[in-house]
Protein backbone atom coordinates (compact mmCIF):
# COMPACT_ATOMS: atom_id res chain seq x y z
CA UNK A 1 0.00 0.00 0.00
CA UNK A 2 1.35 3.45 -0.92
CA UNK A 3 1.92 5.75 2.01
CA UNK A 4 2.58 9.43 1.33
CA UNK A 5 2.76 11.86 4.26
CA UNK A 6 1.14 14.44 1.99
CA UNK A 7 -2.19 12.65 2.44
CA UNK A 8 -1.87 11.86 6.14
CA UNK A 9 -5.01 13.86 7.04
CA UNK A 10 -6.95 11.82 4.52
CA UNK A 11 -5.58 8.52 5.86
CA UNK A 12 -6.68 9.39 9.38
CA UNK A 13 -10.08 10.77 8.35
CA UNK A 14 -12.84 8.37 9.44
CA UNK A 15 -14.73 7.10 6.39
CA UNK A 16 -11.87 8.01 4.03
CA UNK A 17 -8.51 6.38 4.77
CA UNK A 18 -6.06 4.65 2.43
CA UNK A 19 -8.81 2.99 0.43
CA UNK A 20 -10.39 6.27 -0.68
CA UNK A 21 -6.95 7.84 -1.25
CA UNK A 22 -6.00 4.97 -3.53
CA UNK A 23 -9.20 5.48 -5.51
CA UNK A 24 -8.25 9.14 -6.05
CA UNK A 25 -4.74 8.11 -7.10
CA UNK A 26 -6.05 5.79 -9.80
CA UNK A 27 -8.69 8.18 -11.19
CA UNK A 28 -8.54 10.20 -14.38
CA UNK A 29 -10.41 13.52 -14.30
CA UNK A 30 -10.72 16.06 -17.10
CA UNK A 31 -11.43 19.68 -16.18
CA UNK A 32 -12.86 21.52 -19.19
CA UNK A 33 -12.29 25.24 -18.76
CA UNK A 34 -9.47 26.65 -16.64
CA UNK A 35 -11.25 29.81 -15.57
CA UNK A 36 -13.13 30.84 -12.45
CA UNK A 37 -14.55 27.39 -11.73
CA UNK A 38 -11.68 25.44 -13.26
CA UNK A 39 -8.96 26.99 -11.10
CA UNK A 40 -10.29 25.88 -7.69
CA UNK A 41 -11.34 22.50 -9.10
CA UNK A 42 -7.84 21.93 -10.48
CA UNK A 43 -6.07 23.20 -7.38
CA UNK A 44 -8.00 21.04 -4.94
CA UNK A 45 -8.12 17.88 -7.05
CA UNK A 46 -4.36 18.24 -7.46
CA UNK A 47 -3.82 18.76 -3.73
CA UNK A 48 -6.15 15.86 -2.95
CA UNK A 49 -4.09 13.47 -5.04
CA UNK A 50 -6.28 12.66 -8.04
CA UNK A 51 -3.69 10.71 -10.05
CA UNK A 52 -4.26 11.91 -13.61
CA UNK A 53 -5.78 15.33 -14.29
CA UNK A 54 -6.44 16.84 -17.70
CA UNK A 55 -6.77 20.59 -18.08
CA UNK A 56 -8.47 21.83 -21.24
CA UNK A 57 -8.75 25.45 -22.35
CA UNK A 58 -7.88 27.35 -25.52
CA UNK A 59 -7.61 30.78 -23.97
CA UNK A 60 -4.85 33.02 -22.69
CA UNK A 61 -4.76 34.72 -19.31
CA UNK A 62 -6.25 38.22 -19.12
CA UNK A 63 -5.63 40.70 -16.32
CA UNK A 64 -9.37 40.80 -15.64
CA UNK A 65 -9.28 37.02 -14.92
CA UNK A 66 -7.06 37.39 -11.89
CA UNK A 67 -9.78 38.70 -9.55
CA UNK A 68 -11.10 35.12 -9.35
CA UNK A 69 -8.69 32.80 -11.18
CA UNK A 70 -6.20 32.57 -8.36
CA UNK A 71 -3.84 30.00 -9.87
CA UNK A 72 -2.42 32.59 -12.29
CA UNK A 73 0.28 35.08 -11.28
CA UNK A 74 0.11 38.61 -12.70
CA UNK A 75 3.26 38.02 -14.73
CA UNK A 76 1.50 35.24 -16.64
CA UNK A 77 -0.98 37.57 -18.38
CA UNK A 78 -1.01 36.78 -22.09
CA UNK A 79 0.21 33.20 -21.66
CA UNK A 80 -1.79 30.03 -22.35
CA UNK A 81 -3.96 29.05 -19.41
CA UNK A 82 -3.31 25.33 -19.78
CA UNK A 83 0.46 25.83 -19.73
CA UNK A 84 0.56 28.14 -16.70
CA UNK A 85 -2.02 26.12 -14.77
CA UNK A 86 -0.23 22.83 -15.48
CA UNK A 87 3.15 24.25 -14.40
CA UNK A 88 1.68 25.54 -11.15
CA UNK A 89 -0.22 22.31 -10.44
CA UNK A 90 2.94 20.22 -11.02
CA UNK A 91 4.72 22.38 -8.46
CA UNK A 92 1.83 21.94 -6.04
CA UNK A 93 1.87 18.16 -6.34
CA UNK A 94 4.69 16.53 -8.32
CA UNK A 95 3.43 13.04 -7.56
CA UNK A 96 0.47 13.20 -9.96
CA UNK A 97 0.22 13.58 -13.71
CA UNK A 98 -1.13 16.76 -15.33
CA UNK A 99 -2.06 16.61 -19.02
CA UNK A 100 -2.49 19.79 -21.06
CA UNK A 101 -5.17 20.08 -23.74
CA UNK A 102 -4.68 23.57 -25.19
CA UNK A 103 -7.74 23.44 -27.45
CA UNK A 104 -11.30 24.68 -27.71
CA UNK A 105 -13.75 21.88 -27.01
CA UNK A 106 -15.61 21.02 -30.18
CA UNK A 107 -17.45 18.14 -31.73
CA UNK A 108 -14.32 17.26 -33.67
CA UNK A 109 -12.12 16.72 -30.60
CA UNK A 110 -14.60 15.97 -27.78
CA UNK A 111 -14.94 12.24 -28.31
CA UNK A 112 -11.24 11.58 -28.61
CA UNK A 113 -10.29 13.58 -25.51
CA UNK A 114 -13.20 12.66 -23.23
CA UNK A 115 -12.63 8.94 -23.82
CA UNK A 116 -9.31 9.14 -21.98
CA UNK A 117 -10.97 10.11 -18.68
CA UNK A 118 -13.23 8.60 -15.99
CA UNK A 119 -14.96 11.80 -14.87
CA UNK A 120 -15.48 15.08 -16.72
CA UNK A 121 -15.86 18.43 -14.94
CA UNK A 122 -17.78 21.16 -16.75
CA UNK A 123 -16.11 24.48 -15.92
CA UNK A 124 -16.88 26.06 -19.30
CA UNK A 125 -18.22 29.58 -19.69
CA UNK A 126 -20.55 29.33 -22.69
CA UNK A 127 -23.61 27.37 -23.73
CA UNK A 128 -22.10 26.00 -26.94
CA UNK A 129 -19.34 24.21 -25.06
CA UNK A 130 -21.74 23.07 -22.33
CA UNK A 131 -24.05 21.36 -24.84
CA UNK A 132 -21.19 19.71 -26.74
CA UNK A 133 -19.78 18.46 -23.45
CA UNK A 134 -23.18 17.28 -22.23
CA UNK A 135 -24.05 15.42 -25.42
CA UNK A 136 -20.70 13.70 -25.68
CA UNK A 137 -20.79 12.70 -22.02
CA UNK A 138 -24.24 11.18 -22.62
CA UNK A 139 -23.00 9.28 -25.66
CA UNK A 140 -19.82 8.10 -23.95
CA UNK A 141 -21.61 7.54 -20.62
CA UNK A 142 -19.09 9.67 -18.77
CA UNK A 143 -20.07 11.10 -15.38
CA UNK A 144 -20.26 14.88 -15.77
CA UNK A 145 -19.89 17.17 -12.78
CA UNK A 146 -21.57 20.36 -13.91
CA UNK A 147 -21.45 23.86 -12.46
CA UNK A 148 -22.35 27.29 -13.79
CA UNK A 149 -22.41 30.74 -12.23
CA UNK A 150 -24.25 34.01 -12.68
CA UNK A 151 -23.28 37.16 -10.78
CA UNK A 152 -23.94 36.02 -7.18
CA UNK A 153 -25.43 32.56 -7.76
CA UNK A 154 -24.23 29.14 -8.75
CA UNK A 155 -25.71 25.84 -9.94
CA UNK A 156 -24.13 22.40 -9.44
CA UNK A 157 -25.30 18.97 -10.61
CA UNK A 158 -24.01 15.50 -11.51
CA UNK A 159 -25.15 14.03 -14.80
CA UNK A 160 -24.87 10.61 -16.45
CA UNK A 161 -24.64 8.73 -13.18
CA UNK A 162 -27.48 6.29 -12.52
CA UNK A 163 -29.44 6.63 -9.30
CA UNK A 164 -30.93 3.70 -7.39
CA UNK A 165 -33.77 3.45 -9.93
CA UNK A 166 -31.28 3.27 -12.79
CA UNK A 167 -32.12 6.76 -14.06
CA UNK A 168 -29.34 9.03 -15.30
CA UNK A 169 -30.22 12.65 -16.11
CA UNK A 170 -28.29 15.14 -18.18
CA UNK A 171 -28.30 18.90 -18.84
CA UNK A 172 -30.91 18.56 -21.59
CA UNK A 173 -33.36 17.30 -18.97
CA UNK A 174 -33.16 20.80 -17.51
CA UNK A 175 -32.85 22.79 -20.73
CA UNK A 176 -33.49 20.61 -23.80
CA UNK A 177 -32.44 23.23 -26.34
CA UNK A 178 -29.47 25.55 -26.29
CA UNK A 179 -30.59 29.04 -25.16
CA UNK A 180 -30.80 31.74 -27.80
CA UNK A 181 -28.05 34.31 -28.16
CA UNK A 182 -30.27 37.03 -26.70
CA UNK A 183 -30.81 35.16 -23.44
CA UNK A 184 -27.22 34.09 -22.99
CA UNK A 185 -25.72 36.10 -20.15
CA UNK A 186 -22.35 34.47 -20.68
CA UNK A 187 -19.99 37.40 -21.17
CA UNK A 188 -17.85 38.35 -18.27
CA UNK A 189 -19.42 41.81 -18.69
CA UNK A 190 -22.29 40.64 -16.49
CA UNK A 191 -19.83 40.71 -13.66
CA UNK A 192 -19.26 38.09 -11.01
CA UNK A 193 -18.20 38.33 -7.39
CA UNK A 194 -14.64 36.98 -7.40
CA UNK A 195 -15.19 34.50 -4.59
CA UNK A 196 -18.31 32.94 -6.15
CA UNK A 197 -16.58 30.60 -8.64
CA UNK A 198 -14.18 29.72 -5.82
CA UNK A 199 -17.04 28.52 -3.64
CA UNK A 200 -18.96 26.81 -6.45
CA UNK A 201 -15.78 25.29 -7.89
CA UNK A 202 -14.95 23.80 -4.51
CA UNK A 203 -18.41 22.26 -4.31
CA UNK A 204 -17.70 20.78 -7.77
CA UNK A 205 -14.34 19.43 -6.60
CA UNK A 206 -16.08 17.98 -3.53
CA UNK A 207 -18.61 16.22 -5.76
CA UNK A 208 -15.79 14.75 -7.87
CA UNK A 209 -14.12 13.38 -4.75
CA UNK A 210 -17.43 12.00 -3.46
CA UNK A 211 -18.12 10.30 -6.80
CA UNK A 212 -14.66 8.70 -6.92
CA UNK A 213 -14.62 7.55 -3.32
CA UNK A 214 -18.29 6.73 -2.82
CA UNK A 215 -18.42 9.15 0.08
CA UNK A 216 -21.66 10.80 1.20
CA UNK A 217 -24.58 11.68 -1.00
CA UNK A 218 -23.45 13.25 -4.28
CA UNK A 219 -25.77 15.47 -6.33
CA UNK A 220 -26.76 12.68 -8.73
CA UNK A 221 -29.86 13.79 -10.68
CA UNK A 222 -30.09 16.83 -8.42
CA UNK A 223 -29.50 20.50 -9.13
CA UNK A 224 -28.16 22.57 -6.28
CA UNK A 225 -28.49 26.33 -6.37
CA UNK A 226 -26.40 28.49 -4.08
CA UNK A 227 -26.62 32.23 -3.47
CA UNK A 228 -23.63 34.07 -2.08
CA UNK A 229 -25.65 37.10 -0.89
CA UNK A 230 -27.91 35.30 1.57
CA UNK A 231 -26.37 31.80 1.65
CA UNK A 232 -29.71 30.38 0.56
CA UNK A 233 -29.39 27.04 -1.12
CA UNK A 234 -31.89 24.65 -2.72
CA UNK A 235 -31.49 21.09 -3.89
CA UNK A 236 -33.97 20.23 -6.63
CA UNK A 237 -34.69 16.79 -8.04
CA UNK A 238 -34.24 16.56 -11.81
CA UNK A 239 -36.81 14.58 -13.81
CA UNK A 240 -35.54 12.62 -16.80
CA UNK A 241 -37.35 13.48 -20.03
CA UNK A 242 -38.90 10.35 -21.47
CA UNK A 243 -38.76 11.90 -24.93
CA UNK A 244 -35.02 12.56 -24.79
CA UNK A 245 -33.11 10.54 -27.32
CA UNK A 246 -29.43 10.08 -26.80
CA UNK A 247 -27.74 11.27 -29.96
CA UNK A 248 -25.06 9.01 -31.35
CA UNK A 249 -21.62 10.35 -32.14
CA UNK A 250 -22.11 9.98 -35.87
CA UNK A 251 -25.19 12.17 -35.88
CA UNK A 252 -23.47 14.67 -33.60
CA UNK A 253 -20.57 14.87 -36.01
CA UNK A 254 -22.80 15.41 -39.00
CA UNK A 255 -24.81 17.99 -37.06
CA UNK A 256 -21.53 19.75 -36.29
CA UNK A 257 -20.74 19.88 -39.99
CA UNK A 258 -24.14 21.44 -40.59
CA UNK A 259 -23.68 23.91 -37.73
CA UNK A 260 -20.22 24.88 -38.90
CA UNK A 261 -21.35 25.22 -42.47
CA UNK A 262 -24.20 27.41 -41.32
CA UNK A 263 -22.10 29.53 -39.04
CA UNK A 264 -18.92 29.89 -41.01
CA UNK A 265 -19.88 29.44 -44.64
CA UNK A 266 -17.43 31.64 -46.41
CA UNK A 267 -19.85 33.75 -48.45
CA UNK A 268 -21.79 34.67 -45.36
CA UNK A 269 -19.53 35.40 -42.37
CA UNK A 270 -20.09 37.96 -39.62
CA UNK A 271 -17.86 40.88 -40.59
CA UNK A 272 -15.41 41.76 -37.89
CA UNK A 273 -14.56 45.47 -37.72
CA UNK A 274 -11.23 46.35 -36.17
CA UNK A 275 -11.07 49.25 -33.66
CA UNK A 276 -8.86 51.22 -36.05
CA UNK A 277 -11.56 51.13 -38.74
CA UNK A 278 -14.66 51.81 -36.75
CA UNK A 279 -14.45 55.61 -36.78
CA UNK A 280 -14.48 55.60 -40.57
CA UNK A 281 -18.13 54.49 -40.39
CA UNK A 282 -19.18 57.28 -38.05
CA UNK A 283 -20.42 59.78 -40.61
CA UNK A 284 -22.11 57.30 -42.87
CA UNK A 285 -25.89 57.77 -42.53
CA UNK A 286 -26.44 54.17 -43.64
CA UNK A 287 -24.52 52.86 -40.62
CA UNK A 288 -25.72 52.40 -37.05
CA UNK A 289 -23.44 51.45 -34.16
CA UNK A 290 -25.47 49.29 -31.79
CA UNK A 291 -24.30 48.79 -28.18
CA UNK A 292 -25.95 45.60 -26.85
CA UNK A 293 -24.61 45.89 -23.31
CA UNK A 294 -27.02 46.29 -20.41
CA UNK A 295 -27.74 49.92 -19.56
CA UNK A 296 -25.78 49.91 -16.31
CA UNK A 297 -22.55 48.62 -17.83
CA UNK A 298 -19.36 50.66 -17.79
CA UNK A 299 -17.37 52.17 -19.39
CA UNK A 300 -19.57 54.27 -21.66
CA UNK A 301 -19.03 53.78 -25.39
CA UNK A 302 -17.77 57.19 -26.56
CA UNK A 303 -18.89 57.00 -30.21
CA UNK A 304 -22.39 57.98 -31.34
CA UNK A 305 -24.51 54.85 -31.06
CA UNK A 306 -27.88 53.30 -30.40
CA UNK A 307 -28.27 51.25 -27.19
CA UNK A 308 -30.44 48.13 -27.08
CA UNK A 309 -29.42 45.57 -24.43
CA UNK A 310 -29.11 42.03 -25.80
CA UNK A 311 -31.76 40.91 -23.28
CA UNK A 312 -34.37 43.08 -25.04
CA UNK A 313 -33.07 42.89 -28.60
CA UNK A 314 -35.72 40.46 -29.85
CA UNK A 315 -38.53 42.73 -28.63
CA UNK A 316 -36.94 45.94 -29.95
CA UNK A 317 -35.55 44.71 -33.24
CA UNK A 318 -37.96 46.94 -35.20
CA UNK A 319 -36.17 50.01 -33.84
CA UNK A 320 -33.23 49.15 -36.11
CA UNK A 321 -33.60 50.81 -39.47
CA UNK A 322 -30.00 51.31 -40.68
CA UNK A 323 -28.78 49.36 -43.72
CA UNK A 324 -25.54 48.46 -41.99
CA UNK A 325 -25.53 47.62 -38.28
CA UNK A 326 -22.25 47.35 -36.38
CA UNK A 327 -22.85 45.59 -33.07
CA UNK A 328 -20.59 46.36 -30.11
CA UNK A 329 -20.36 44.97 -26.57
CA UNK A 330 -17.75 44.85 -23.84
CA UNK A 331 -15.39 42.21 -25.22
CA UNK A 332 -16.82 41.12 -28.57
CA UNK A 333 -18.60 37.94 -27.46
CA UNK A 334 -22.16 39.19 -27.03
CA UNK A 335 -21.82 41.36 -30.12
CA UNK A 336 -21.00 38.23 -32.13
CA UNK A 337 -24.09 36.46 -30.75
CA UNK A 338 -26.25 39.52 -31.40
CA UNK A 339 -24.85 39.88 -34.93
CA UNK A 340 -25.69 36.26 -35.70
CA UNK A 341 -29.18 36.83 -34.36
CA UNK A 342 -29.64 39.99 -36.46
CA UNK A 343 -28.29 38.22 -39.52
CA UNK A 344 -30.79 35.42 -39.11
CA UNK A 345 -33.57 37.96 -38.59
CA UNK A 346 -32.76 40.36 -41.43
CA UNK A 347 -31.25 37.88 -43.89
CA UNK A 348 -29.48 39.51 -46.80
CA UNK A 349 -31.41 42.78 -46.49
CA UNK A 350 -28.90 44.31 -44.13
CA UNK A 351 -25.18 44.21 -43.60
CA UNK A 352 -24.35 43.10 -40.06
CA UNK A 353 -20.88 43.49 -38.53
CA UNK A 354 -19.43 43.53 -35.06
CA UNK A 355 -16.57 45.27 -33.30
CA UNK A 356 -13.77 42.74 -32.75
CA UNK A 357 -12.55 42.73 -29.15
CA UNK A 358 -15.37 45.01 -28.07
CA UNK A 359 -15.31 48.36 -26.36
CA UNK A 360 -12.44 47.33 -24.07
CA UNK A 361 -10.25 46.65 -27.10
CA UNK A 362 -11.34 49.90 -28.77
CA UNK A 363 -10.53 51.99 -25.68
CA UNK A 364 -7.14 50.29 -25.28
CA UNK A 365 -6.41 50.97 -28.93
CA UNK A 366 -7.33 54.66 -28.50
CA UNK A 367 -5.17 54.91 -25.40
CA UNK A 368 -2.18 53.45 -27.25
CA UNK A 369 -2.72 55.62 -30.31
Amino acid at each position, binding site marked *: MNWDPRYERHYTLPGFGHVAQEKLATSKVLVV*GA*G*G*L*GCPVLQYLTASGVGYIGVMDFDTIQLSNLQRQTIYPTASVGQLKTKVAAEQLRLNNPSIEIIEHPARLSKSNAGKILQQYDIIV*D*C*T*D*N*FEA*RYVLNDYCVVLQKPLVF*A*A*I*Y*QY*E*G*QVAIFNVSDEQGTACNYR*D*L*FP*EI*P*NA*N*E*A*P*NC*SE*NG*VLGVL*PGIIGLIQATEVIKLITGLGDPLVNK*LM*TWNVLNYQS*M*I*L*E*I*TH*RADFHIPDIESLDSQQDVDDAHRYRSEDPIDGIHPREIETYLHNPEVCLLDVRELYEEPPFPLVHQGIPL*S*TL*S*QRINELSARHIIVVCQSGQRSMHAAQYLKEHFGKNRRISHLVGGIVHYLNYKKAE
Partner: protein
Amino acid sequence: MKIKVRAFGPLLDVMESEFFVEASDTKALVDVLIQQFPGMADRKIAVAVNGKITNTLVKLQDQDTVALLPPYSGG
Protein backbone atom coordinates in the same frame (compact mmCIF):
# COMPACT_ATOMS: atom_id res chain seq x y z
CA MET B 1 -54.54 28.69 -5.57
CA LYS B 2 -51.99 30.93 -3.90
CA ILE B 3 -48.55 29.87 -5.08
CA LYS B 4 -45.19 31.02 -3.78
CA VAL B 5 -42.77 31.76 -6.63
CA ARG B 6 -39.00 31.82 -6.25
CA ALA B 7 -36.98 33.33 -9.10
CA PHE B 8 -33.27 33.00 -9.80
CA GLY B 9 -30.44 34.49 -11.84
CA PRO B 10 -31.25 36.87 -14.71
CA LEU B 11 -34.98 36.70 -13.84
CA LEU B 12 -34.21 38.93 -10.86
CA ASP B 13 -33.65 41.78 -13.34
CA VAL B 14 -37.41 41.83 -13.93
CA MET B 15 -39.01 40.26 -10.83
CA GLU B 16 -38.56 39.88 -7.09
CA SER B 17 -36.80 36.80 -5.76
CA GLU B 18 -39.97 35.73 -3.90
CA PHE B 19 -43.62 36.62 -4.45
CA PHE B 20 -47.07 35.07 -4.62
CA VAL B 21 -49.37 34.52 -7.61
CA GLU B 22 -52.70 32.84 -8.18
CA ALA B 23 -52.49 29.86 -10.56
CA SER B 24 -54.05 26.41 -10.88
CA ASP B 25 -51.23 24.65 -12.69
CA THR B 26 -47.67 25.25 -13.90
CA LYS B 27 -48.70 26.34 -17.39
CA ALA B 28 -51.22 28.85 -16.05
CA LEU B 29 -48.54 30.14 -13.68
CA VAL B 30 -46.01 30.66 -16.46
CA ASP B 31 -48.68 32.32 -18.64
CA VAL B 32 -49.60 34.74 -15.83
CA LEU B 33 -45.95 35.63 -15.30
CA ILE B 34 -45.30 36.14 -19.02
CA GLN B 35 -48.20 38.60 -19.10
CA GLN B 36 -46.71 40.41 -16.12
CA PHE B 37 -43.09 40.15 -17.30
CA PRO B 38 -43.04 39.94 -21.13
CA GLY B 39 -39.23 39.51 -21.11
CA MET B 40 -39.78 36.03 -19.68
CA ALA B 41 -41.45 34.75 -22.84
CA ASP B 42 -38.22 34.27 -24.78
CA ARG B 43 -36.32 32.63 -21.97
CA LYS B 44 -35.75 28.95 -21.40
CA ILE B 45 -36.62 28.24 -17.78
CA ALA B 46 -36.69 25.05 -15.76
CA VAL B 47 -39.73 24.90 -13.48
CA ALA B 48 -39.62 23.11 -10.13
CA VAL B 49 -42.68 22.39 -8.00
CA ASN B 50 -41.97 21.78 -4.32
CA GLY B 51 -38.35 20.91 -5.02
CA LYS B 52 -38.91 18.71 -8.06
CA ILE B 53 -38.10 19.92 -11.55
CA THR B 54 -40.97 19.07 -13.85
CA ASN B 55 -41.14 18.74 -17.63
CA THR B 56 -44.91 18.33 -17.78
CA LEU B 57 -47.98 20.25 -16.67
CA VAL B 58 -48.42 19.90 -12.91
CA LYS B 59 -51.59 20.80 -10.98
CA LEU B 60 -50.80 23.17 -8.15
CA GLN B 61 -52.14 23.15 -4.60
CA ASP B 62 -52.52 26.13 -2.31
CA GLN B 63 -49.17 27.13 -0.73
CA ASP B 64 -47.09 25.15 -3.26
CA THR B 65 -43.68 26.62 -4.05
CA VAL B 66 -42.62 26.99 -7.68
CA ALA B 67 -38.97 27.75 -8.47
CA LEU B 68 -38.08 29.31 -11.83
CA LEU B 69 -34.53 28.43 -12.86
CA PRO B 70 -32.91 29.97 -15.92
CA PRO B 71 -29.72 28.44 -17.32
CA TYR B 72 -26.43 30.04 -16.31
CA SER B 73 -23.48 29.86 -18.63
CA GLY B 74 -20.75 31.54 -16.59
CA GLY B 75 -17.72 29.64 -15.45
